[in-house]
């Protein structure tokens, strides 16, 4: 199986203690997961309800991302789910963290991951443009 550079970025993010799960997703679809088993701790026990809530949030993202919606988040039980939207798309980098985590420092690394993924996507877009010419 080919290495997916976006999965590598997610893998890096998942190595942080307070990142319990991360993925690139859109409504009704998870596009990319980290290479390893993507969930830590007890997140799997509440994954169903978190997943349904995520889909509702993606409904809002799809309506407003073209208007510049950058981030969203919600708290559910002992977890927070953070959405870092890719500009002008309906996709977002999604991270699940404990509700009492030190969010400030984690946000910095989630944003770094989002920027790295954007660079990868731009590179892939340029490569596609060259091939089609």
């Amino acid at each position, binding site marked *: 199986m080919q290495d997916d550079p976006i999965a590598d970025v997610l893998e890096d993010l998942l190595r942080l203690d307070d990142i319990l799960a991360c993925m690139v997703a859109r409504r009704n679809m998870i596009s990319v997961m980290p290479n390893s088993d993507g969930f830590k701790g007890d997140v799997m026990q509440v994954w169903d309800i978190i997943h349904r809530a995520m889909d509702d949030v993606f409904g809002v993202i799809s309506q407003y991302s073209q208007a510049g919606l950058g981030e969203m988040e919600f708290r559910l039980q002992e977890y927070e789910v953070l959405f870092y939207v890719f500009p002008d798309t309906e996709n977002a980098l999604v991270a699940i963290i404990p509700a*009492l985590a030190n969010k400030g*420092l984690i946000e910095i690394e989630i*944003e770094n991951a989002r920027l790295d993924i954007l660079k990868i996507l731009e590179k892939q877009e340029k490569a596609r443009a060259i091939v089609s010419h």
Partner: protein
Amino acid sequence: MQDWSAIETEEDFKQKIKGSLEAEIKEILKSDFESAVGMSRKWDAREAGREVARSTLKKLKTPPSFFLLFSTIHYKKHGGFQEFLDGVWDVLPDKTPLIGGTVAGFINSDGSYARGATAMAVSSPNMDAAIGFGKNPKKSPKKAAQRCAAMIKNGLKNSDYQNKFLFEIVSGPKFPTIPFKGEFRIIKNRSLSLLFAYLSKISTSLFQKGAAREAEALQFLSKELDDFYILGGSSMDDCRYVDNFQFYNKKVYKNSLLGLGLQTNLFPIIKSGSGLISTGKKSNVTKDRVWGHIICSLDHKPATDVYLKAVDWPEKILDERVYTKTIYYPLGSIINEKLIVPNVIALFVGKYIVLAHSIPSKKLCLLTTSGERLTKAIDDALFGIPSNFGFGVSCAIRMQTLGDKVNIVKEKLKSKFGDNFLVIYTPGESIYLPDKGICQHFQNTFNILTFGTSKIDLT
């Protein structure tokens, strides 16, 4: 000599400053002063050490006069800090003076990071450097400071340069932990307040877990090195306050005070900003413990109650999430009616308020801030200083508060310094300006050091 008499407007003033600084930079470049910043985002400790050293040194034309090394806490679980430091020394020339430690995060021209390692190296033929070390500063800040200062003075005794600067890094605060329970962030039971206070003092003195006593260390350092400008910070982890490490030459330490002393023909310039403003609400400390780290009562009433009344919050707000709010409402110690030293709340323990750093005054006020004020403070600190090189020490609380918006700070620094800057985030910031009579350990501030060819009056 610049003619300032023709200045009539703020725009005139800014143009004049710009011209003056451009002349400064030309002079500094003539002096063969080089600085370089590198980093690593590798997870493996040894590889990260090698990469951070390599990426820094390749930007210098001559061997470094000194090497400042910082990393986040993550290498503790990915090879350990001795492996990390050994990796650095796989690349760094032998006998290069090196100090550093773990920090919450850092900013350089590549970005803002809460994970990784970074370094700054400076090379100058007109600079002498010496490093110093003192152990167990939590037990005895006086002995640690005196030993460190003695090593610095001895190392620089043959220097002919007149301008003196010290960067110091000291082991930061560590929360006490309860066996089998782990860390705690809040204790609501008021009957435990006094017990906590006694145990804190014992924990700090005997086990070196508790208050870092940085303010005391700074006082003793400034007495010994009274003609040095001092900028310092404390080492820390990722804001859990469980562990932190310091790097001194080829060894890693857990409870030390380190110093890098410089004597040079360049003038050290240190400027600060905070973005905190007073709400006008004041009170007096009527009882405190543990060297002024625990406020027991304000105006003869339980400290917690007085604080909650001042911010107009109900008691039920006191859960583990309260600290996401108290960072916007720190306390401030009023010194001589002019200077306010911010102090962020570390813990609520029943009726007591625990601070990470001691209060330098019994007169307190309630401060407040916002994200916008925190970032505007950077502009104030950067205005009017040379832009050849910048090394900053800023409070980790600011990084926590701003989150990913800390990239706004990065852009301002990059606009000012280009690639030549590094800012580290620590749990407290120490400043000693001998000509201004300022000797304080602050919190929630942004402080930047640069070098000029002449003294600049920044008042």
